[in-house]
Structures are given as C-alpha cells and as structure tokens.
C-alpha cells in the first residue's frame, strides 16, 4: 500500500474528520450520543448513532494545548482539581458545547460503562440530570474475575438492552446484517492493531509510541467503520515495510527498548520524543496492547456470536484483574519484547491505573534485573508538571541504561 494511500485513509479517521461526520449527521437529523470510551461502538455504528467521546476529546484537547478553558469551566462550577482531568475537561466540553474542532451538536442520548472507572457512573448521572438526556448505563459489576462466564453473560444482556434503549429513544432500528458488517470491520481493525503490537518485537521496532498515541484514536471512536479497518490494515503494511528497512523512531538507532505503563501524558507528548532522541524506543504498553484491539481469548471476534463476542471483548478490562495477573502480562512482554527498562506513569487522575503500580514494580524487579523510572503527574492537566524536571530525570535514567550496556 502506497504511503499516499495510507495518508488518504488516515484523513478519513482523524479527530477532525470524526467531528465533520458528527456535524453532518446531526444536521441530517441523526441521533448523537455522549459515549464513554469502552462501550460497544460497533452497535452504535451499526444503528446509525454518532458519538461524542468526552474522554477522547479531553485527551486531544490536552495534546494540542487547548484544554485550559475546559478546566477553568469545571473549576468555576465547583469541581475540585483533584477530580480526574478527563472528567473535568470532558464536562467542560459538554458545558460549553465547544471542542478543539468547533462546536458540538446537542446530544440526543448518552451511554456509559460503569466499571472501567467508577467516576463514569456519577459523570453520566450528571449528564442525564443536567442535560436531561436519556441515559443508558452498561452495567458491569466490580470484579476481580472478568473472565467468569456469568459475568460475560450479564454484560451480553447489557448490550442487548443497549440496542433496546437506542430503539426506544431514537428513530434508529437494529438490523442484524448491519451489526455483522460492523463487527467484520471491527474485527479486521482489531486484528491488524494486534499485529502492529506484535511487530514491535522486531529489532529495531519500527513504531513510535508517540505515533501510536494518535493512531489509537479510530479504535476508540470509529470501530465498525470500514475506514477504520482499512486504516489499520494499511498502517500495518506500512510498518511491515519499515521493519524490513530497519527503520526506527529512535535517533541513531534503537539502543534501549522500554515499556511505558499508563496513559500517555497528553499535555507533554514530547516526553516520548525526548526518549527517542536519546536512542530509547517504547516497544510495549498495556495502554496500547491490552486496552484496545480484539481483546478476546482467540484475538479475533467470533462473528457467529456477535453479542457474546462483544461481551467477551469489552469485559476484558486490564485493571480489573488481580496484580498477580497484571504482572504476568509484564513478565511475558519483558521476555517477548527484549525490554531494557520500564517507565511507570503514576497518574494522579487515574486511580485504577495507579493503585497497585508499586506492587507491580516490586514483582517485576524481583524477577527481572531492570531499571524503573517513575513519573508522577496527570494525564491531561499540566498543572504542576515540570518539563525541565522530566528531562533531567530522563537523562539520569538513560545514563543508567547506558551504564548497563557497557
């Protein structure tokens, strides 16, 4: 696939393109849903519902330095700055009806999960209350065993109820054929994403975590669309070619292979660039490898059991697994990806990702003689973050890595 063709496809799945589709859909009378990341958007796509994703928009706003107005709005309305920055920024977007790409239309409905993060429940309750939006909660009880069959079955019932909710509150109607097509596209996108992750085993890895932080977007917002599937297929082919040519984002060659744990620091993505300038390349992250793509046991969606396969995929939440299980993923990745060190992002905003991180580090360092750098900060709110301090710490970490190479 030619580079030009990849760029042409990519232009159809960018955040800006999504925004234009959303506006066009709203103008055509299509329903608009305020949706949390991690709900089955294959269903929404199949039923013709267009979504606003506040968390995704918060990350993008932070990434391009346009989140401050939303944080200010949240502060004015009484939200403490200790509350998750996605929540504050996402609510700021809803209150102001503005995004970095322009105004958003008045939503028709809202849908959220309730387990990936317990703030979602209050957040969407607020949207339901404040904007008087019909709201559906994808119930997913707290669990430490997300693979339990009865748990997956219960979530399957929630997906079916989601369909009923959409039919009751919008003119959209469910058609099995459209869901089948949506799932085929989702499966193809998720499959190629998984292959991309596998490709990073290659030495050098041709893929930059900074690029992935942007390339993950269609998995969050556009699953079910053919464009998203085409994009990941083309992207995979591009990176295969790069791997063959020995390309790597690490300057002067890939000298250190690293793991990043946590959400990217959206307001200072240049941190990743700085690592790459120093010859370090991130080759595995739970955020990219375990949060997105086909998270089923086979790595593919079972197109013969559409609701069940979505339930299996969406209940497979990394942070709902015990620390011992989370360690197994790291242990395997450290071996498979020939890792030299780890960077752990201690994220003030995200309790599920940060609680247990210290225990994880203890398990990892007990088995693997690897250096660990811990950053404390926030995923989207730059308050209190010092770029100079971050660079100094990265420099020190690189020195340690270099010392171990000698």
């Amino acid at each position, binding site marked *: 696939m030619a580079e030009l063709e990849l760029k042409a496809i990519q232009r159809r799945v960018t955040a800006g393109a999504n925004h234009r589709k959303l506006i066009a859909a709203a103008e055509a009378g299509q329903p608009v849903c305020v949706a949390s990341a991690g709900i089955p958007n294959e269903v929404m796509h199949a039923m013709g519902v267009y979504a606003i994703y506040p968390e995704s928009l918060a990350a993008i706003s932070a990434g391009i330095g346009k989140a401050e107005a939303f944080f200010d709005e949240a502060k004015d*309305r009484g939200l403490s700055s200790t509350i998750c920055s996605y929540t504050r920024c996402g609510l700021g977007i809803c209150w102001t009806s503005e995004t970095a790409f322009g105004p958003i239309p008045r939503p028709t409905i809202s849908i959220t999960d309730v387990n990936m993060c317990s*703030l979602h429940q209050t957040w969407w309750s607020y949207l339901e209350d404040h904007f008087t939006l019909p709201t559906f909660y994808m119930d997913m009880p707290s669990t430490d065993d997300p693979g339990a069959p009865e748990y997956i079955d219960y979530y399957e019932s929630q997906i079916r109820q989601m369909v009923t909710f959409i039919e009751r509150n919008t003119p959209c109607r469910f058609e099995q054929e459209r869901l089948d097509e949506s799932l085929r596209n989702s499966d193809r996108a998720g499959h190629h994403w998984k292959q991309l992750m596998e490709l990073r085993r290659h030495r050098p890895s041709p893929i930059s975590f900074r690029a992935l932080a942007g390339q993950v977007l269609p998995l969050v917002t556009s699953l079910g669309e053919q464009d998203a599937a085409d994009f990941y297929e083309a992207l995979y082919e591009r990176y295969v070619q790069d791997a063959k040519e020995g390309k790597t984002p690490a300057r002067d060659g890939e000298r250190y292979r690293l793991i990043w744990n946590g959400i990217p620091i959206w307001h200072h993505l240049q941190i990743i660039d700085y690592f790459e300038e120093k010859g370090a390349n991130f080759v595995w992250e739970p955020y990219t490898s375990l949060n997105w793509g086909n998270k089923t046991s086979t790595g593919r969606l079972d197109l013969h059991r559409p609701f069940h396969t979505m339930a299996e995929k969406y209940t497979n939440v990394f942070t709902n697994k015990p620390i*011992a299980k989370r360690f197994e993923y790291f242990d395997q990745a450290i071996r498979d990806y020939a890792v030299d060190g780890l960077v752990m992002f201690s994220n003030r905003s995200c309790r599920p990702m940060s609680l*247990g991180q210290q225990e994880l580090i203890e398990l990892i360092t007990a088995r693997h003689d690897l250096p660990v750098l811990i950053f404390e900060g926030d995923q989207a709110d730059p308050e209190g973050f010092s770029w100079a301090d971050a660079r100094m710490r990265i420099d020190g970490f690189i020195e340690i890595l270099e010392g171990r190479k000698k």
Partner: protein
Amino acid sequence: MTNAIAGFRERFETRHERARALVQRGKKIVACFYGLAPKELVHAAGMVPVQLVEDRDSRYEAKSGLLPYMCGMSKNLAGQIASSVLDYVDGVMVSTVCDTNRHMLDIWVHQRAFPNHWLVRTPAKKDEGAIDYFTKELRRLAAELGRVSGQPVADDNLRESIALFNENRDLFRRFYETRPTAGISAEDAVYVFASALTTPVEEHNALLRQLLASLPPGEPKSPPKLMLSALNIPMSLDVIRMAEKYGATVVTDDFIRNARYGSADVPTDGDPFRALARGYLRTVPAPGMYPLEDRANGIRDAMSRAGAEGLIYLVQLYCDAYAFEYAVLKERFERWKLPHLKLEAEATPGSIEQLNVRVQSFIESLV
C-alpha cells in the same frame, strides 16, 4: 442517659480491644470496607461484621506506602494494616463505592493483608436482571463465608440477620427523628452511629433501645442550626467542635454509613438472598450509587426535619466520590438557595484548623 451515651463512645473507642476479645471467645471477624458490604450475610454465617474506619494517628499515613494523591481514608487503613492494628480480622469484604476502595483490595490481596479477601460484585442497576445477578453473587459469597466460619448460611439464619439489621435501621430512624430536639450533643450523636459500625448488632440494638427510652428533651438549640454531610469521622468531630465554637449547633448529620442504617429496610418476604439483593441495590444514598435527584432531596428533607438552616459539606482531600457529588448537588443547592459551605481538607487537625475563617464566616452569614 449519660451512661447510655458513654456506652456508644466507649464501644467505638475500644473497638479493636473489643474485637480481639470476641476472637478470644471464638468469634470470627469480617472487616467491611465501607457501608455497602452486606453485613447481614456475614452475621448469618455466624461471624461479626465490623466496618473499617479511620483512626487518627499520624504514623499511619507514613506507614501506608500509598501514593501521595490517594485519600486519607485509604492511607489510614493501609497504615493500620502495616501496624498490625487489624490483626484480629479473618477476612475483608470490599464493596465498591469508588475506584480507590475497589483497588485497595488488589493491594491487600497482593500483600496477603488478611486471611480472606472478597470483592462484592455489585451491579449498578436495580432491574430484575441485576437482582438475579446479585442474588447469585450473594449466594456465592455466602458459601465462601460459610466455609470460613464453618456455619453455612441457611435461609432462616439470613432472615434472622436481616430482621436484626432492620431493627437497627428502625432504631436509627427513631433516633434521628428525636435527635434535633433531644438533649444530646452533636459530638455524642456521631458516636451513636459510629459505634454501630464496629459493634455486634444485637449489642447495638440494646444500646439504642436504652438510649431512646432515656433520651430527655434538650434545651433549645442555639441558632444557627446546621447539618453536616461527611465521610471521615475524626474530621467531622473537628468540624462540629469548630462550628460550635462559633455559636452554631449541628443538629443532624449525613454520613453514608448512618444513612445506610436509616434508609429503607431490606425486604423480609420470599427468598432472603433475593430480598437482600433488592435491599442493597441502589437504595443506599452513597455518592454515585444513588439517583442524584433523590440524594439532593434527601439532604434537603433531612435538613427540613431537623430545622437546619445551613449545610456543611465536608470533603476529604482526594476523595473523588464526595468531591464530584458536591459539584452535582451544588447546582440544586444554589437553585434552592440552600445555604451551604463546602470544605475540602486533609484528615489532619492542622488541615482542618485552616478552615477556621471559612466556617466562622459561613456561620455569621446565617445569623
């Protein structure tokens, strides 16, 4: 009456020693992390449920090993565990009210902090599908509890336990009806409910009956009268003292955990496991777990019943659940012109002391 009041406070303050004495008499103790763990189930398995509550001891935070941006409650409990204060506990049962309390369990499992660890897999809804799911979950937990205690949870045992806890709820409702005009201080009233968290229910029921039978009418309370909404007990006591120092009276309070006892009874008809499921799903006014309209109305109605003219809403720093709930409730409070003051502080006397001027100004604004 004085003896009855002293009994609540004494039980709360000696809760660890009392729990150890129970263990010596052959009882097993199950720690419940927050108020949504179904204590009836623990009781029906022949064990004593005690709620994990914060102790004011500055050494605990240093021993917690937790990240600085975790709430004081989680750090305090982690410190208690590290200091072996909870060495009498046979198991912990965590029921999610926030991400921190949910994921503290992961750390405890990793540390093997207790001999047994259970996560209550509670649905967020209350439709028939959710009740079916939760009924099965309660049966799963009952089987595990029975394995630990050696006393399987029989239907009749569970019915008896539900009746005992319903009696506790009923006594609490009566206490809160009487409290605004009764001769009991706000500080003492906190111990009435706090002791319920850590005292065997039979014993607490007897104490409450004794209190209600002997509670005299009090002197008229000095205005302005306040309601306190809070989570952390030592912080609340500090704020009550501060408000009283500036001439106000806290005539009622709103803690997740007393609301638990005062909210609707668990149904007593039919399958007791199903009744327990119906009794717990979305009936407890905890942040995020309860309809916002009902939560706001509940606060306003409680203030009205108690004659409270203002509300202090106390948030422990880094408590997402309360901090977020406040922002939601605030819109209604402002619409209703309900005088309120949000305080956000760490759970230390120094941090609370810094709220001095704000509390004084709020009280003066009500006079």
